[in-house]
């Protein structure tokens, strides 16, 4: 079994970081993982995406035409990648910034105002953690408690961020319910 998750949005939205946390959690769960970033001439505000491949056997191609799931943090990402998602996958739409929907009936569309929730919690910068948590809660791609642990580990040594991110994880989980 192999599944792939595409995270996409603006540079600065924490796209690469959320992918890394998921890859870490999946590795801890015993899966083979690969995290593949986009690395064009990137800049804050430009587009950014990364792909996380999770598999129970050695991962072959790091190049994937059709990912299983998509976490879209802005509109251009949704428009570009939603048509590529495999039927049956989860498409998370950050509805705070995306006024449209994915337009597909063969996927599980998860509408989460991630940026709005993050703002309410005190920082727009944790929108990625809200979205990641909502995605994991819905897709069950890894155990949710493991995700919680890996988010904490990611911010190890930055104690002031941990509480905020812990809240983001919880609010994300609720948003997916």
């Amino acid at each position: 079994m192999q599944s792939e998750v595409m995270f996409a949005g603006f540079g600065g939205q924490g796209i690469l970081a959320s992918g890394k946390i998921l890859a870490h959690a999946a590795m801890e769960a015993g899966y083979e993982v690969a995290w593949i970033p986009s690395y064009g001439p990137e800049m804050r505000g430009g587009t950014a995406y990364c792909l996380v491949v999770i598999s129970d056997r050695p991962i072959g191609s790091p190049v994937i035409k059709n990912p299983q799931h998509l976490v879209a943090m802005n509109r251009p990402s949704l428009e570009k990648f939603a048509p590529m998602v495999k039927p049956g996958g989860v498409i998370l739409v950050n509805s705070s910034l995306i006024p449209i929907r994915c337009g597909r009936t063969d996927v599980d569309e998860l509408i989460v105002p991630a940026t709005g929730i993050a703002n309410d919690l005190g920082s727009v910068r944790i929108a990625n953690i809200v979205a990641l948590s909502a995605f994991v809660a819905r897709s069950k791609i890894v155990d949710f408690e493991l995700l919680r642990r890996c988010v904490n580990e990611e911010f190890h040594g930055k104690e002031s961020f941990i509480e905020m991110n812990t809240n983001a994880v919880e609010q994300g989980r609720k948003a997916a319910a």
Partner: protein
Amino acid sequence: MAKVLMKGNEAIGEAAIRAGCLNYFAYPITPQSEVAEYLSKRMPDVGGMFLQGESEVAVGYMLFGASACGARVFTTSSSPGISLMSEAISYIAGAQCPAVFVNIIRGGPGLGGILPSQGDYFQATKGGGHGDYRLLVMAPASVQEAVEMVMLAFPLAEKYRNPVMILGDGLIGQMMEPVEFPDHLRTEPTNKDAWATNGMDTRNSKKSNLVKSLYLDPKMLNDHNLHLKSKYDQMKREEIRYEAYNADGDYKILIVSYGTMSRVCRTAIDMMKEDGLEVGMIRPKTLFPFPEKAIYDAAVKESCQKVISIEMSMGQMVEDVDRCVKGRRPVEWYGKCGGDVPTPEEVIGVIRGLL
């Protein structure tokens, strides 16, 4: 040690430290700058040194100088940077000093682009610099393998007193995968008394060492070249490494592919197998020495109709594959440059087109 999730570039830096290399010279260039970033933080922790040169030309000679003194040295760069180092590489090979070069290839020629490519195959395996020299070239297909090859590169460079090159591409450098690091190796080249200009009082031998590549006497230069050749011949006998994939049974097509591209081919082979089409693959792990016999033997298998070299370059490795197959099977080529790595679906389309 437990598995950790690391970017290829960072893992390469850590692997060098674990291999006992505490002397790193470099000049930043995408897509390998994270090696320098990582080691600028990490080297001071382990009592090592990272010196950023004023250019890649300088970096190449910093390696030469430090290696001549008996230090274990390495650098990392990407294609245009390796071009600038090529003069020094030739001198280092000529003077028989060990050194490790990592090339995380980007698209070319010229400035090209910053995305993955395998366009430096010729540069790495056939020259780059001037004169009759060879590099021992290894091409990793995963972050774990990059770690293992970097750690192997130092003892091999010292065994042959010759530069070793790790040839990766932008994806190997940028991708994160779980890695496990083996234990520390030794921290000093064990055979350095044979060549290092480290001071007569530090070694038992009464012989003074001279590091040079200048031989004006024609006979001496010819003898020197014959000696170098004997080392390259020894590499061909002792250092060939490759992986055969789905190559035990009967296959109609044989793929030869390396590095990132071979992983795409592996997935394509699995997908074709599910549809009842058997395709085998030889993946060279060493590009020099090249797995000549393995490719020949796999190509002449009765079931095999054609051989194809699939590479992210415009027909470079295919020349070596063609040479190995000796006309016994048609040898085709498929490749793509620019950084758009072919997908498994694309590879399948190409393979089906051969039948």
